[in-house]
């Protein structure tokens, strides 16, 4: 090993440590994290929206070929929402691109993530995992501060 090779190994090591530190920082500051997995319970297969208080919501999403239930989720501005996700049949994706919510719905497993909706608007939820011939039409919406609700 010559001095250039030693140098490149050190630089590479430093670079990877910086990347890793950035990932750890995002996690420890609560900026972003992966979904939590929680023990299975059949009650997660009932689609519903529950308001714990005026700014805290729980949304239990059930994916199925080829729709999400509930398909329209009404939330006030500033609400913090816990999404619980599972599927009745094949594997589906659950992607809210504007909020970096990105989960897989897998049979027999329950996924959970928390996200805060600060701005009013319509946030499309797209199924981004192939789930059969109707896959391209499978979507839902989070509607934040819809005037009539």
């Amino acid at each position: 090993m010559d001095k250039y090779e030693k140098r490149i190994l050190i630089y590479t090591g430093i670079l990877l440590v910086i990347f890793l530190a950035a990932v750890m920082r995002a996690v420890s500051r609560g900026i972003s994290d992966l979904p939590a997995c929680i023990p299975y319970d059949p009650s997660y297969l009932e689609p519903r929206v529950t308001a714990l208080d005026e700014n805290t919501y729980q949304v239990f999403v059930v994916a199925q070929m080829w729709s999400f239930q509930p398909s329209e989720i009404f939330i006030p501005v500033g609400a913090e929402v816990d999404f619980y996700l599972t599927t009745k049949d094949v594997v589906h994706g659950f992607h809210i691109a504007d909020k970096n919510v990105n989960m897989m719905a897998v049979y027999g497993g329950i996924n959970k993530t928390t996200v805060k909706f600060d701005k009013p608007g319509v946030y499309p939820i797209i199924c981004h995992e192939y789930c059969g011939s109707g896959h391209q039409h499978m979507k839902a919406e989070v509607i934040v501060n819809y005037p009539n609700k």
Partner: protein
Amino acid sequence: MKWNISKGLRAVIILELALPLTLLALGIYHGLLQTLYRSGMISMREFAALEYYQGLTLHGVINAIVLTTFFAVAFGHACITYYLKRKTSTPLAWLSFAFMLVGTLLAAWAMLSGKAAVLYTFYPPLKAHPLFYLGVALLVVGSWVAYFSWIPVFLAWRRENKGIKMPLAVLGTMVNFTVWFVCSIPVAYEVLGLLLPWSLGWTPDVNIPLARTLFWFFGHALVYFWLLPAYIMFYTMLPKLAGGKLYSDNAGRFVFFLFLILSIPVGVHHQFGEPSISRGIKMVQTVLTFGIALPSFVTAFTIAASLEYAGVKRGAKSLFGWLGKLPYFDRDRYLFAYLITGLIIFIFGGLTGIVNASYSLNAVVHNTAWMPGHFHMTVGGPVFLAILGMSLYLLTNVTGRVLSPSMKNIAVIVPHLWMIGLLIFSTGLMWGGLLGEPRRTNLGISYLDPNSPLFRPDWVPTTAMALFGGVIMFSAAGLYFIVLLKLLFTKRTEEPGLEFPEYAVLHDEPRIGLLDNFRPWLVLMFLVIALAYIPAFRDIKKYTGDKAPPYDPNNPTPLELYQKTD
């Protein structure tokens, strides 16, 4: 010096290159069609009797499994016999080919008859025809037979050459197939033990998180199985083709052994968004995935340093002058063009790979069009171009046919054109991915159909860009097939045999025992795999509830129920 390989092995190599290259025509055809569907140019479920997801399955299985496996075996045969200067077993080579051929034909039948539109990841509980699973399993088992036939040859060479470094290409080939063998045991269990009896109706249901984790135990090591033949060419052939020497041979040995340890225990980074595996395991495998970036950085340095040496020898003066002195368009060294363009693409493929591996950053890109954008710059870049270039090189060698100068001119243009097309195509896909465009989706009948309520005008420029790049890539592939067809109708003018570019080292360091011995690395490999995967399987047992019955991709009712009502 030309190595005179046996007539039988020559025939095996020719068939193992020609067969998947023929199927590739279909795979590439549906590559182009996907860019047409996705951009809304085709707004239909199927075009010319090929349904979108059926074509997508063909595209993935043919390009990423059939072509790559056949090529790795053919190139492995060539490397083992050429660099060890020994005969390998011809009957076993034929047996291996027969398994792979039958497997490919079974899977191709299932896909073409529309009974296996489950994509190449065959995620249950979507169910394919049993022969699809059996075909894929036979293809993999066939490649094992080739590996088993090399082991005694390799061990005999080692016994008779104590204290001599094993040839780098042989080390790379043995590392590659060892990883391949180990990683394909769980997926063989998934396919033969779980999915096949389930698709035959013998077992009612399957544990889905378990099946997926078994798949990804294999699925990421698979990408290194694609990549390592290209790495062997980068280390042992590229420096000589550029007119120089390999900067360091021990660096290459170190890199291959790192791949042996780290190729497998990183698969969970494909499952960051999934339930049933806890965050701690995902973080551990993030760190391990960062670890496997190290051998690629070492390779980037070593190959760049080797090319710099070549450029300086060819008269380069300034700091970056060597970049301009390389034989990019030298038709008599067309293999150089295939390898260097692949490396240029891989700079971007590697860096985007680090993004994907980065734990929660993955949530920005997972399952969006970013992903195909990324992996077309790895498997569709360095891997695919190395396969195309080396196939042409091997075919001319073992058939004793010579390409005419005009054909060589076309052959040298192909990789450059492919690179331009690919970089445009991947930029379109990745840009779209960041805007939320999903992968594996027939966008033409929903999000890219102006008459649909789902229409997304913001995805028009991105999918159009991918289409533009795709058309260029398709033309490059067309030119390649012209050269291949011309070769078919050329007469033999030379003695058939095998000769690889001669391999010389700039810093020829003494043998380091640790870098010439499989045992310690194999022990480490199994330790790291156990560390990374035992907790993952324990989590799956703990968190997973019900198992799933099979589903037909065209019907939301479980298969059992609607078959009964028929």
